[in-house]
């Protein structure tokens, strides 16, 4: 009873601190708008008719009242495609990071708890994996298993598992060795209880902040890989893929390259602002 009261008091404190950062709040609003657009687009637009159907007569029209962002080389409305494409970036960003955080934290926490030579082996492996450039890993994985959304998510997720694993292990170790844990143990608390009651809440804050910045990183990366053709497959209107499609026409039809890129930038900017706000709100020691 008392416990939950304290938790909600903490949460509202964090929210209040977050609200103070105007940029973060705007970011949150924009992010919600983008999510809404993504959801609404799936309902409103018909995949066949609006997104992929070729309309030869309408090729390469500049932005106008009928086509706010113009049309692409296959006559498709760019605005509709950009809106529809939002879901891919959001999904890929969030799911990849969830995979990373969950697997990474499990591995890291497991290593920290188990200790001994198993921990050493796991940590050495992780150190080595960290030295392999992530880009290479992702490209290879996607290439091997084919360019598709789940594969991309998996590849992006796996490439940052070592990073989160190391963080999770460090968190568990520091908190574990803290004196209040020893006190808790002295009072007879079991290992599991210690883990959930003490280790987890303290480890969550840095993970949350890192995860947010990873989401925006993943969105940019995913767009990049799709740009290379090693990400979301055509004809799905992923923003990076759209940039790749429009590239041959950049000279005379630059709007094809401007709007999808802007979409990526605004989304990532919003998420970065949220991340900043979270970091300030969660870190009690940060003096501005």
């Amino acid at each position: 009873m008392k416990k939950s009261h304290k938790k909600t008091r903490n949460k509202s404190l964090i929210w209040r601190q977050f609200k103070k950062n105007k940029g973060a709040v705007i970011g949150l609003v924009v992010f919600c708008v983008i999510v809404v657009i993504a959801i609404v687009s799936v309902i409103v637009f018909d995949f066949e008719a609006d997104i992929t159907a070729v309309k030869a007569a309408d090729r390469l029209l500049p932005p106008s009242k009928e086509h706010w962002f113009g049309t692409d080389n296959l006559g498709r409305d760019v605005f509709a495609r950009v809106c529809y494409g939002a879901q891919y970036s959001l999904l890929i960003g969030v799911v990849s990071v969830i995979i990373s955080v969950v697997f990474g934290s499990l591995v890291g926490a497991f290593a920290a708890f188990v200790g001994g030579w198993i921990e050493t082996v796991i940590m050495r492996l992780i150190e080595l994996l960290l030295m392999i450039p992530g880009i290479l890993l992702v490209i290879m994985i996607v290439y091997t298993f084919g360019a598709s959304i789940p594969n991309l998510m998996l590849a992006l997720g796996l490439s940052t598992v070592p990073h989160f694993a190391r963080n999770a292990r460090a968190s568990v170790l520091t908190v574990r060795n803290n004196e209040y844990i020893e006190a808790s143990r002295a009072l007879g608390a079991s290992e599991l209880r210690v883990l959930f009651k003490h280790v987890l809440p303290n480890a969550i804050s840095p993970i949350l902040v890192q995860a947010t910045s990873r989401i925006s990183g993943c969105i940019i990366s995913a767009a990049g890989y799709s740009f290379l053709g090693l990400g979301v497959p055509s004809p799905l209107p992923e923003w990076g893929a759209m940039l790749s499609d429009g590239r041959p026409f950049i000279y005379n039809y630059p709007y094809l390259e401007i709007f999808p890129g802007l979409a990526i930038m605004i989304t990532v900017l919003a998420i970065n602002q949220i991340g900043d706000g979270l970091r300030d709100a969660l870190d009690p020691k940060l003096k501005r």
Partner: protein
Amino acid sequence: MLKYIFKRILILIPLIFLVSFIVFALMDNAPGDPVRTLVGENMTEEQIEQKREELGFNDPLLVRYGRYMKGIFRGDFGKSLYGNKDVLKEYLFRLPYTVKLALLSIFFTLIISIPTGIIAAVKQNTWIDAIFSAGAIMGLSIPGFWLGLMLVLIFSVKLGWFPVYGADEGLKSYILPAITLGVANASLLTRMTRSSLLDTIRQDYLKTVRAKGLSERKTILNHAFRNALIPIATIAGSQFSGLLSGSIIVENVFSWPGIGTLTVTAIRTHDITLATGCAVLTTMFTAVTLLIVDVLYAFIDPRIKAQYTGK
């Protein structure tokens, strides 16, 4: 110190084994038949099979892997499946382009970030600080390759100041791609510089220095900044070593003759030997660059030097 360097170099060995194994295993399961693509349309099944046997593709994975590793340690990374070019030679030919680009890029990053970071810290919480910090967040949010495209659009296509692609026009060719690569790093480094300087300014030893009668200017320059430089150098160093592999997508935008485009081409054409070679070599060079950066770091921070020498 030498012991430390030696230990770091030693780690490269298991690293090479690990990377090549991962790549090998992956590429083995990749779609498409390299032999078939290699020999083209006009061979019969038997001839293809014979070619496969000849090239050793029928041997089990571990055997091929073992053969490959033996080759590496002799310095032989094999020949690309297409054009039969020596992988190592190809790679080393293209490496300087990527390295030079990385150097120019980190140079841009440093000359932009450090002054802006310092100003933002000194004028903390004023409108100047707000603008620079906002700029930094924007810079972090722009997808690198899109920035490259936009820069090309404005400065090459519309204004004609720089070449649209390639590395043929000397320094002019390097500018746009270097800036593109540098923006995201600069944004991060500006924020780092700012927060590092803000941290150092609060330190106690500055009180001792001021009480000695040192001018404010020298206090900040010789003491505060000198210490603030340490985390900045770390980040810049790791950014630089990340540029070797991180430039892949941007190289593609600018059709840059570097190792990034080589790797992507290799993958796209199912050229296993070339792709594996690129992956292993890039990993190795990144690790070596990181080692050099770490050793240089010891000269900036005497405490790190102590760690390395084991005092």
